[in-house]
């Protein structure tokens, strides 16, 4: 593929230009339309769900008479009313019922749905249902599930070399463990779908989902209809973060069932408490390791066992647990390594995709391991991190036998270490801590290496559709969905660059399964990489036709046709883009094209846990400085410096936004966001009153984010950019490790504190007390 000449600032909105989100002017005036804002067709019904008050048990009695008799109720559904398959599992594993039939598998699992004239009536009616269960004692925690060997799927192992022999031969050995909590997505727009009945019993669903094709196919199965009877449209989401990948289907299915049954439009919108109680979250993970290392802190062998808390169904837990394993190494070469991950079943809501998809959890275990080695050899953790980096000859094979060919962290860390003044600050903090008995400061620099591609290889495909109308205006459509990440704008910039037209000429349209079929989820950070390429391919198809037409019409060679800003140079003439399009139309040139892209080079054999699952890696690094109060556990992030590699940025404004937002979201996961279930299996943190995501007040006073100027993707991605959706979340590991560093000061930096995530004030206080007792 020929590299494009960059004609910067010629057209408005070509690649590499920093533009605000394409919907920004609608966002700031309240005119952007989300699913719940679409004018409802007359007679639209509203749906609420009802459930049993147990986490696990057989349903013995279901009496919905009072529900049916309640004011405004039009329709009540149970599992028996589902004409097709009662399953919306993303992997077709048959364990994600739309409505539970015989058993309840988690607290609050919907057993029936009620549709009424208003949402308030539906909610009130749902409370009148009688659902009796023969309740069993639920298995709720990782420890309980491990004790019972309660599994949702087979264990999986990655091996390179001989970890046992390596550990035996190692100069030094140590063991450690850590647990980290899950995370609620807390998208500000909850799950919502509105289904509109169409002729032939078909249905159109406006859905807030990252995966319209999966919603379409699952609903077709539920309705017992072919996929072509179901159309799913997504204009925009009010945030998603992985929580609207598989989790949107159930609510869309309920809306579709009601719409088809009643002939009226139906909306299923979860209120915040239901959304948090009834939809999956990030997986909790527990890990323990034994690591062998030399006297410098170089790791020579590692044996790691992890366990993920998957909840009551498979959902995407296998792929998520695998990604935790893929990222255990983070940026470090592990010689002689074994990684095992157990996938635990618990009688709780099924955990699901969340930005990073297991990667952050695995990476945290790896970073904790490194940190413990650093304390053991008495070095600054940064020096031990650098010592263990990939990059040197013979140290570039991952535990899954992929060669790391694009390792740039050596350069990046050197730059960040200088620009953040790491060494001087380290000295100052050590001095501060010596003279400050209660408040302790901590500093940490942590790297991120994140693999880009779906590890399920067939998902790495995307389609796009471009029309140019005869007035020269362009309509763009592709399989990616917009959740605020700026995908639509980036893809439009790619198309603007191809045609050399201002981006304003391009109409960005809602993702729709009737336009581009069989799409993959907008997930795995792959949205721009894949849809951008597909759109570029479609644009080039039309361009080729226009060039051929111009050559024929103007009697010139191909090399004499050049797309220049909003015009086309043909030989010695310059023709307006609109004029050329008009002429092409009159001469019967096809002005519409599809584009299709499949990510090259990737392959992976799960049976041997080896291959090249990732097209490339995205890199970043962050330095965080924190202060903790060792008498209360209170803490603040004081300063953050980030250097991140997005390759050659398609849009620096969007990319920096992703980095800042990802970092803060990761910081929430590792510090304040604590999910808490009571002994009956009921989630007690189901609203922002009890579940604390970072607020504006938590933003560090000093926060500097820089794109790595030398960044350029070694692979031929769209304009040599790199994916940016997920990787920045893991930059927040620096905050956790800075807290850990501050705690370490309590025993002279000799041990790594016993600190699980999230590092809430309670946990920090307990860790501080343990360390103080130990050093007394």
């Amino acid at each position, binding site marked *: 593929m020929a590299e494009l000449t960059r004609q910067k600032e010629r057209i408005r909105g070509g690649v590499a230009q920093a533009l605000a*989100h394409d919907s920004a002017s609608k966002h700031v*005036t309240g005119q952007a339309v989300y699913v719940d804002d679409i*004018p409802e067709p007359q007679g639209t019904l509203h749906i609420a769900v009802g459930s049993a008050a147990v986490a696990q048990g057989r349903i013995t009695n279901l009496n919905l008479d009072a529900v049916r008799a309640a004011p405004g109720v039009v329709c009540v559904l149970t599992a028996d009313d589902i004409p097709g398959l009662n399953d919306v599992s993303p992997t077709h594993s048959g364990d994600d019922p739309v409505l539970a039939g015989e058993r309840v598998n988690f607290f609050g699992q919907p057993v029936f749905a009620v549709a009424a004239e208003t949402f308030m009536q539906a909610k009130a009616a749902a409370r009148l249902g009688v659902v009796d269960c023969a309740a069993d004692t639920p298995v709720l925690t990782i420890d309980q599930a491990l004790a019972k060997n309660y599994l949702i799927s087979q264990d999986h192992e990655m091996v390179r070399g001989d970890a046992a022999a390596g550990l035996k031969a190692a100069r030094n050995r140590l063991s450690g463990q850590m647990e980290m909590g899950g995370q609620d997505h807390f*998208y500000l727009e909850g799950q919502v779908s509105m289904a509109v009945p169409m002729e032939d019993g078909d249905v159109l669903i406006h859905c807030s989902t990252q995966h319209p094709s999966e919603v379409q196919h699952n609903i077709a199965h539920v309705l017992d209809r072919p996929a072509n009877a179901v159309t799913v449209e997504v204009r925009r989401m009010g945030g*998603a973060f992985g929580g609207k990948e598989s989790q949107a289907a159930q609510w869309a299915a309920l809306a579709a069932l009601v719409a088809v049954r009643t002939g009226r439009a139906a909306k299923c919108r979860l209120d915040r*408490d239901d959304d948090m109680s009834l939809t999956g979250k990030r997986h909790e993970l527990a890990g323990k390791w034994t690591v062998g290392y030399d006297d410098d802190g170089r790791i020579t062998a590692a044996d790691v066992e992890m366990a993920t808390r998957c909840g009551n169904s498979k959902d995407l837990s296998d792929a998520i647990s695998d990604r935790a394993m893929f990222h255990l190494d983070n940026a470090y070469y592990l010689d002689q390594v074994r990684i095992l991950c157990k996938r635990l079943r618990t009688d709780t809501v099924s955990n699901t995709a969340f930005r990073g998809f297991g990667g952050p959890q695995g990476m945290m275990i790896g970073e904790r391991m490194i940190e413990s080695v650093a304390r053991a050899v008495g070095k600054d953790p940064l020096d031990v991190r650098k010592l263990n980096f990939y990059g040197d000859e013979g140290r570039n094979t991952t535990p899954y036998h992929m060669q790391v060919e694009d390792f740039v962290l050596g350069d990046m860390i050197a730059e960040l270490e200088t620009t953040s003044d790491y060494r001087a600050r380290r000295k100052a903090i050590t001095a501060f801590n010596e003279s400050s008995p209660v408040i302790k400061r901590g500093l940490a620099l942590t790297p991120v290496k994140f693999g880009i591609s779906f590890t399920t290889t067939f998902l790495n495909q995307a389609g796009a559709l471009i029309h140019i109308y005869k007035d020269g205006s362009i309509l763009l459509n592709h399989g990616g969905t917009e959740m*605020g990440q700026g995908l639509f704008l980036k893809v439009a910039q790619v198309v603007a660059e191809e045609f050399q037209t201002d981006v304003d000429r391009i109409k960005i349209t809602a993702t729709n399964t009737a336009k581009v079929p069989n799409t993959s989820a907008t997930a795995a950070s792959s949205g721009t990489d894949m849809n951008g390429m597909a759109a570029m391919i479609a644009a080039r198809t039309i361009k080729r036709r226009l060039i051929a037409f111009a050559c024929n019409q103007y009697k010139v060679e191909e090399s004499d046709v050049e797309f220049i800003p909003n015009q086309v140079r043909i030989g010695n003439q310059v023709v307006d883009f609109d004029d050329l399009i008009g002429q092409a139309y009159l001469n019967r040139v096809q002005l519409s094209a599809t584009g299709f892209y499949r990510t090259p080079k990737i392959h992976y054999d799960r049976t041997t846990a080896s291959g090249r699952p990732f097209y490339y890696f995205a890199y970043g690094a962050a330095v965080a400085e924190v202060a903790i109060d060792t008498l209360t556990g209170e803490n603040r992030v004081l300063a953050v410096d980030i250097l991140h590699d997005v390759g050659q940025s398609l849009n620096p404004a969007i990319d920096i936004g992703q980095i800042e937002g990802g970092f803060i979201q990761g910081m929430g996961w590792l510090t304040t966001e604590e999910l808490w279930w009571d002994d009956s299996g009921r989630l007690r943190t189901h609203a922002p009153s009890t579940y604390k995501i970072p607020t504006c*007040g938590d933003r560090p006073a000093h926060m500097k984010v820089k794109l790595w100027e030398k960044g350029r993707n070694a692979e031929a991605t769209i304009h040599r950019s790199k994916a940016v959706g997920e990787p920045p979340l893991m930059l927040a590991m620096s905050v956790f490790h800075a807290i850990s560093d501050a705690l370490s000061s309590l025993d002279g930096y000799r041990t790594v504190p016993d600190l699980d995530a999230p590092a809430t004030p309670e946990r920090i206080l307990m860790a501080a007390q343990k360390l103080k007792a130990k050093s007394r």
Partner: protein
Amino acid sequence: MAKNFVTTTINGDEVEFASYPGQSLLDVLRSELHMTGTKNGCGSGDCGACTVVLNGRPVNACLVLGVELDGAEIETIEGMATGTKLHPLQQKFLDHAALQCGICTPGILTMAKAFLEKNPDPTESEVRYGLAGNLCRCTGYDKIVRAVLDAAADMRADG
């Protein structure tokens, strides 16, 4: 259910609506008046997505009852721009790319406007704490804080 008739002023216009007991201002705006710029985030007054200005004070519209509002003056995001001319805060949110999914944006802008009216020359820290009741899950707040400070400077210069 019996409905009560309520007369209010919304964004300067006299508006009459019928509201049943227990119906929130948020639901009145969105369902009865089809003014969907004000968003429903949590329904419990903890996220700020439904912030509107009621009689000069910012409130969470999900915690105010529609029937209480006879004679009240309400300002929503739909009234923030003057015709096609954006309010300086709206313009700065565009200039700083201070939004992503955009669903918290109306509430944050409404809150920021009310905040700057009380404190036209805030410090960075005052902005951060002034907006702490409005959650944003996408941006990490950095650009929001910058945009508000920048808008405040412009608004002071314009007197």
